[in-house]
């Protein structure tokens, strides 16, 4: 076997740079390695920790530490949490009162981060390693990636937050052994068990809860305080007042790092009172949540067959691990060394920039990660057939063969699921793929190979092939406004090598993908359209398609957008006739369920 030699960058003595970005629920951190030294990007006020806050009002956009205390209450917090449910829902208002989605809010925040990096770095570099919670599903991963991409970053890798932290620990402190990373941030809880040997970082398994974090400590404690000190019905409290109170409680929580008891004058819902704060009461109110994290941790150990004695230490990551009570409980339950000697807010970004530097400039280190959640397909009866199970090392490619259930079936619907439950409704649906244009054959005869491929970013790409024709069929993907994971991959891998390309160019690519999809969808229903619609209508549609196809060879974003909207409008009539709903909802109606061989 021949050894691989990594090519030196051509005629370029300057080392390439790659940012490490930790986009957190509460705070975000960017770092970069230049001249073998790590530095953190600082904001206008010289802070390394940039609160993940966005404020829109009266034509003004503000971010992070530029938002004053008054504005904080009206600003968008914990945007990262919104990525777990439809991040494309337009539920926010921007500075011009236009409706925008979580992905777009995050994009604006990434643009701000990019501007900070610009002023910090003399040479411009937008390559980055972006961290994500280990327990994030496919959708959340790809949407976060998309936000950063739309802001102009080139994402070289997505890596899991606990893995990143362990990487920093392993490299900077030269630790070897089996380590447990306990990562409790503002909004997410992640754990990973890793084996560190010289230069090799191997993740054995990962688990967590994507909606558990320090923010929950705050609201639990706030609830407790109100119950104890104010005789009020929480349901009747104004949401602004509640938000203000929560931010106040957050500060109280942080005070417990330095003192156990103190008194303060508190105003809540126009009532002022002197309140005694006691650390034990705080601990008591968060007791259940802390124990929940311990249970998740213990079951991962059991799953991986790792005993407490085998764990050489627990690495603490995330601002919420500053809470003394968390450390106490961990120490008691695991009886092993706790490593908290590095700043838990900065360590994730640190690992990301170390890894980025390795990737771009080559290194002897190797990072092996796993997929956090099982992936599979819905089969008859709404059950999930697992194709790749959780904690499988990535990259991973797996193929499974499916067939048709009815004679002469010419299309097949494939529903992709992610999660650990038996029935599909309890798992996350990643999307439906329609394989159409199969040769009509008796049921059970066609062999359709469905290929799942998870790459090192943890991003899933699916393809289907009808073996009999030997040709890869077009996948028609059911979409609405969302961009599929497959396309996202396409965007990222498309020729945008030059980091300085502007956002318009990226938008152009998105519109092109949308346009291609609607054309595909219409082709799928061609016959139905011809029978159901007026001649004039059919003509219009076909003209618009031809025009759109021509535009796809050019680069005029506005024209493509215009034609797309026209086409959507023109097909509305058809969709209404067919099922009385939007066109995009229609795809998939005709496809028969699939059976597994």
């Amino acid at each position, binding site marked *: 076997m021949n*050894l691989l030699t990594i090519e030196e960058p051509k005629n370029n003595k300057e080392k390439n740079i790659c940012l490490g970005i930790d986009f957190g629920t509460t705070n975000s951190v960017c770092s970069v390695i230049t001249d073998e030294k790590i530095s953190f990007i600082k904001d206008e006020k010289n802070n390394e920790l940039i609160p993940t806050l966005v404020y829109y009002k009266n034509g003004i956009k503000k971010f992070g530490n530029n938002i004053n205390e008054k504005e904080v209450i009206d600003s968008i917090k914990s945007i990262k949490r919104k990525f777990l449910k439809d991040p494309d829902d337009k539920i926010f208002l921007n500075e011009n009162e236009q409706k925008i989605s979580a992905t777009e809010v995050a994009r604006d925040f990434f643009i701000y981060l990019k501007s900070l990096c610009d002023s910090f770095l003399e040479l411009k570099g937008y390559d980055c390693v972006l961290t994500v919670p280990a327990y994030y599903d496919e959708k959340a991963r790809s949407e976060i990636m998309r936000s950063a991409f739309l802001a102009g970053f080139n994402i070289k890798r997505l890596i899991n937050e606990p893995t990143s932290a362990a990487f920093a620990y392993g490299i900077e402190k030269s630790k070897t052994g089996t380590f447990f990373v306990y990562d409790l941030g503002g909004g997410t809880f992640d754990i990973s068990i890793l084996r560190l040997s010289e230069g090799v970082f191997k993740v054995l398994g990962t688990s967590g809860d994507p909606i558990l974090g320090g923010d929950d400590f705050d609201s639990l404690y706030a609830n407790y305080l109100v119950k104890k000190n104010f005789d009020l019905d929480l349901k009747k409290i104004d949401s602004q007042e509640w938000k203000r109170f929560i931010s106040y409680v957050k500060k109280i929580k942080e005070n417990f790092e330095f003192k156990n008891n103190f008194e303060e004058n508190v105003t809540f819902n126009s009532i002022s009172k002197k309140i005694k704060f006691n650390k034990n009461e705080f601990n008591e109110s968060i007791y259940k949540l802390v124990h929940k994290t311990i249970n998740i941790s213990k079951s991962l150990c059991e799953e991986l067959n790792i005993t407490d004695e085998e764990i050489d230490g627990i690495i603490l990551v995330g601002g919420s691990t500053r809470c003394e009570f968390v450390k106490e409980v961990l120490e008691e339950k695991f009886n092993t060394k706790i490593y908290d000697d590095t700043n838990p807010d900065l360590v994730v970004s640190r690992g990301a920039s170390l890894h980025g530097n390795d990737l771009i400039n080559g290194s*002897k280190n190797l990072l092996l990660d796993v997929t956090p959640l099982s992936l599979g397909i819905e089969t008859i009866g709404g059950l999930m057939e697992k194709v790749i199970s959780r904690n*499988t090392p990535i990259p991973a490619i797996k193929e499974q063969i499916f067939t048709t259930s009815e004679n002469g079936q010419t299309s097949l619907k494939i529903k992709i699921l992610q999660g650990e439950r038996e029935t599909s409704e309890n798992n996350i649906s990643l999307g439906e793929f329609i394989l159409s244009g199969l040769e009509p054959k008796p049921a059970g005869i066609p062999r359709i190979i469905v290929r799942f*491929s998870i790459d090192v970013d943890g991003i899933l790409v699916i393809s289907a092939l009808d073996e009999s024709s030997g040709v890869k069929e077009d996948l028609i993907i059911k979409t609405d406004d969302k961009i599929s994971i497959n396309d996202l991959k396409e965007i990222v891998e498309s020729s945008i090598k030059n980091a300085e390309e502007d956002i318009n160019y990226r938008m152009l690519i998105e519109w092109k993908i949308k346009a291609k999809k609607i054309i595909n969808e219409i082709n799928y229903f061609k016959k139905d359209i011809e029978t159901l619609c007026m001649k004039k209508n059919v003509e219009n549609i076909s003209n618009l398609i031809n025009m759109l196809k021509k535009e796809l060879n050019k680069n005029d974003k506005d024209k493509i957008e215009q034609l797309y909207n026209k086409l959507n409008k023109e097909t509305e009539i058809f969709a209404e006739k067919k099922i009385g709903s939007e066109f995009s909802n229609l795809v998939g109606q005709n496809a028969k369920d699939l059976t597994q061989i």
Partner: protein
Amino acid sequence: MEKSCWNCKASVSHKDFFCRSCKKIQENVEINEFEIFSIDKKVLIDFDILEKNYLKLQMLFHPNKFIGLSQREIEASNKYSSKINESYNLLKNYVNRIKLIIEKSGVSIINHEETYKNSELLEDIMEIQEEFMFAEVDQKKKIKEKIKKSIDQILFDTEELYKKRDYDQMLNNSIRLSYLSKILN
């Protein structure tokens, strides 16, 4: 069998992952699970060698080592790296390992599984399962130890069966092992 490198056209053997002259990664090289890990096709294997060679191979093929190279090379690395991950998991697990040995010996497994469905093996297993389910915590530990010992013995026996090329009996053992390992988890 000789073919030529896609990049520099130099001749490469069908087993070369990298071209000897331009060092570029080659496509579609077949991977034999035991061979690539330099492990003898046996039931009892050396896990240290497996682990060591796994890391060595990933060091060569992992996509992180191909950043900035052509799409073609990245894809090849992704394929090999995935296949190495899969093979590693197959070899690590004794049930899969035995099945792999049988398959590699040219015996079809699918038809055989039926034969053993109703054998006394199932009765045996049910007995152990019941004993385990109703046992106290302390007792459970003891039963687990017993099962582990029994697994070791079966593995040893299966190795002997392989020497005699008794694939039917090997398959029988692999089914028994898969039930036993399920009880352990």
